[in-house]
C-alpha cells in the first residue's frame, strides 16, 4: 500500500486549534507543502503574528519566532539580515498587517527585504472577537461597526496588494483565495513562486489569501465560503499584481 496523502513534514503532528471551517488551517498546509517541496524546512525561519495564528509556531516544524502585533516584517528583517542564506517568512492577519503593522510591512517592501509574507485577509479581527479590520467591507457588520461599516464614519477597506505593488522593492505580489479546489491549487502555486523568488534573492514577496472567519462572521463554513465569493472577491480581485520575473 502506498501513501498518497500525508501530513507535510513541515507541519507538526498536532491538531490545529482553529474554529471548524476556518481556512487558516488550509493556508498553513499550503505553506508547509511548499516548504517540503522546495526542501527548505531546515533553513527556514517563520515569524508568527498576533492574531488567531499567534501560536502557529507550534504547528510549523521549522524554527519560529513570535512577533509583537504588526511587527513581524521588522522582526523578519532582523532575522533575514542576520541569516543571509536562510529563508524567512511572516504569516500575518489583516489587523496585524494592514492596521497596527502598516509601517512595518510598507517599509519591509520598500527596502526589498528578501522575505515572503503570507497575508491572510479575513476582513475581520478574528482573535479579539470580530471587530472591524482595515479590510472590513463597506456595509459589513462587526462588533465595532454594529450597523455596518459606513465610509463616512469608518473609511474604506484597504487593498493591500494594490498598495504594495507600487513599491519597487516588492517583486511578487499576488492575491489568491482558498474557496475551492481550483483556487487552493492556485494559492499554493503563488506561495511556491513567492518562496522561489526569495530563494533567488529577488526581493520582497507577498501572497494575500482571502480567508474565512465563520465564527465572527456568524455563518456556518459553507455559507462563509459563499459570502467570501459574493462579497470579498468582487472587492478584492484575485490575480498577480506584480511579478518581476514575468516582466
Amino acid at each position: 500500500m502506498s501513501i498518497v496523502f500525508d501530513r507535510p513534514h513541515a507541519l507538526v503532528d498536532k491538531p490545529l486549534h482553529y474554529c471548524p471551517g476556518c481556512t487558516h488551517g488550509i493556508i498553513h498546509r499550503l505553506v508547509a507543502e511548499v516548504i517540503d517541496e522546495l526542501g527548505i524546512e531546515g533553513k527556514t525561519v517563520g515569524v508568527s503574528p498576533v492574531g488567531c495564528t499567534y501560536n502557529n509556531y507550534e504547528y510549523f516544524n521549522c524554527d519560529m519566532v513570535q512577533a509583537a502585533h504588526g511587527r513581524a516584517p521588522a522582526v523578519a528583517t532582523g532575522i533575514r539580515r542576520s541569516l543571509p542564506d536562510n529563508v524567512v517568512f511572516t504569516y500575518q492577519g489583516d489587523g496585524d498587517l494592514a492596521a497596527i503593522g502598516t509601517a512595518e510591512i510598507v517599509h519591509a517592501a520598500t527596502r526589498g527585504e528578501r522575505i515572503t509574507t503570507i497575508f491572510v485577509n479575513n476582513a475581520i479581527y478574528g482573535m479579539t472577537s470580530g471587530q472591524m479590520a482595515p479590510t472590513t467591507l463597506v456595509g459589513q457588520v462587526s462588533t465595532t461597526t454594529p450597523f455596518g461599516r459606513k465610509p463616512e464614519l469608518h473609511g474604506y477597506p484597504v487593498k493591500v496588494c494594490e498598495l504594495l505593488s507600487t513599491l519597487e522593492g516588492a517583486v511578487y505580489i499576488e492575491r489568491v483565495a482558498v474557496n475551492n479546489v481550483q483556487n487552493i491549487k492556485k494559492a499554493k502555486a503563488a506561495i511556491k513562486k513567492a518562496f522561489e523568488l526569495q530563494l533567488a534573492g529577488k526581493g520582497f514577496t507577498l501572497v494575500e489569501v482571502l480567508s474565512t472567519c465563520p465564527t465572527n462572521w456568524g455563518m456556518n463554513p459553507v455559507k462563509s465560503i459563499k459570502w467570501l465569493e459574493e462579497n470579498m472577491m468582487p472587492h478584492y480581485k484575485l490575480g498577480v499584481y506584480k511579478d518581476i520575473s514575468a516582466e
Partner: protein
Amino acid sequence: MSEKLLMKGNEVIAEAALRAGCRHYFGYPITPQTEVAHYMAKKMEQIGGVFVQAESEVAAINMVYGAASTGKRVMTSSSSPGISLKQEGISYSACAELPMVIVDVVRCGPGLGGILPAQCDYFQIVKGGGHGDYNLVVFAPSSIQELYELVVHAFNVADQYRNPVVILGDGYLGQMMEAVEFKDEEVINKVEKPWATVGTNMEREHNVITSIYIEADVLEAHNNKLQAKYRAIEANETMVEEFNCEGADVIVTAYGTVARIVKNVIKDAAKEGIKVGLIRPITLWPFPKASFEKYAETPKGFLCVEMSAGQMVEDVRLAINGKNSVDFHGRTGGNVPSQKDIMAIVREIAARK
C-alpha cells in the same frame, strides 16, 4: 600596544560595540546620539556588517529582536522619545530572553522636550517603561573610557544572562570628546546559543522564540524563572564607586556626568574642612543598595543630585530606609546642577547637629 585616541562619546559607543563583536545595528535618527548611527553606517558597510536605518524606533527594536533571535550580537541606540517608542519591543525582548544592547543617550523631556542633556529617563529605563515584571541591566558610565569598557561588558552580560542590557548616558557623554585607551583585544564572553532560531538544518527539534504564555501557571513559572535570573544578576553584576565615604560628614550620590561635578565639590568642601563622600552607582539596576546600607548612618545626611526632577532619589531613599535624611537637588530642561549650588546644600547638611 593599546591605542589611545581622542574621541567623541557617541563614536566610542559604536567603536566599542564593533570591538565587542557586534555586526548588526538597527536604529532611527535622533539627537543627541545620531553619530552612533553615522559611525555604524560607515563601518558596517566597510566590514560587511549589517546597518539598517529603520522606519521608526518601533521597527528598529523589532529588527533587533529578530537579529537577537538568531543569536547575533546586536545593538540599537536612541534618545529619550525614541526609547519611549522602543518600550514595547524591550518588554517582549525581556520576556523572550533575548540578549541585546540598547543605548539611550538621554535628552530632556517630557514630550519632545529639548535636545539638551538630562537624566530624566531613569524611571523609563530602570523601572520598566514597558509592561510587565522585568528588569534590564543598566550601566551608567561617567567618562568616555568607562563608556567604552561598559559597552564591551554590556554585550558579555547580555549574552551570559540572555537579557537586554542598557547603556544609559546623558547627552554630555555622547557629545563630549575625551581620551580613550582601547585594548588590543577585548574579553569576549563566548556563550553557546543552542536556543537561537537559525534553521533546524533537519538535525534537531525546532527552536521557538516567544513571549506569550497563555496559561496562568505556565506564565507564572516563566516569571519565576526570570525573577531567579534577576536575583543572580543582583548578586553578581552590581557595580558602584564608593569614594571618600569613610567618616564623611555628607555623602552625595550621583551617576553619570553629574558624579564628575560632585568630585569637584568634594575638593571644594575639603578646603572648608567638610568631608564629602560620593556613592556613584555604575549599575542603576541592579542598584548598589549595599553601599547605601553600609554608610547609612555615617554622614549627617545624604544628598542625591540628578539632572531630573528626582528619580534615582527614590531608590536612594528605599536603600537608606529611614536611617538618615536624603536631600535632593535636581535641574531639568537641559540645565546642569552647579558646583556652587551643590556646595551650598552640602554646607547646610554638614552644619546639622
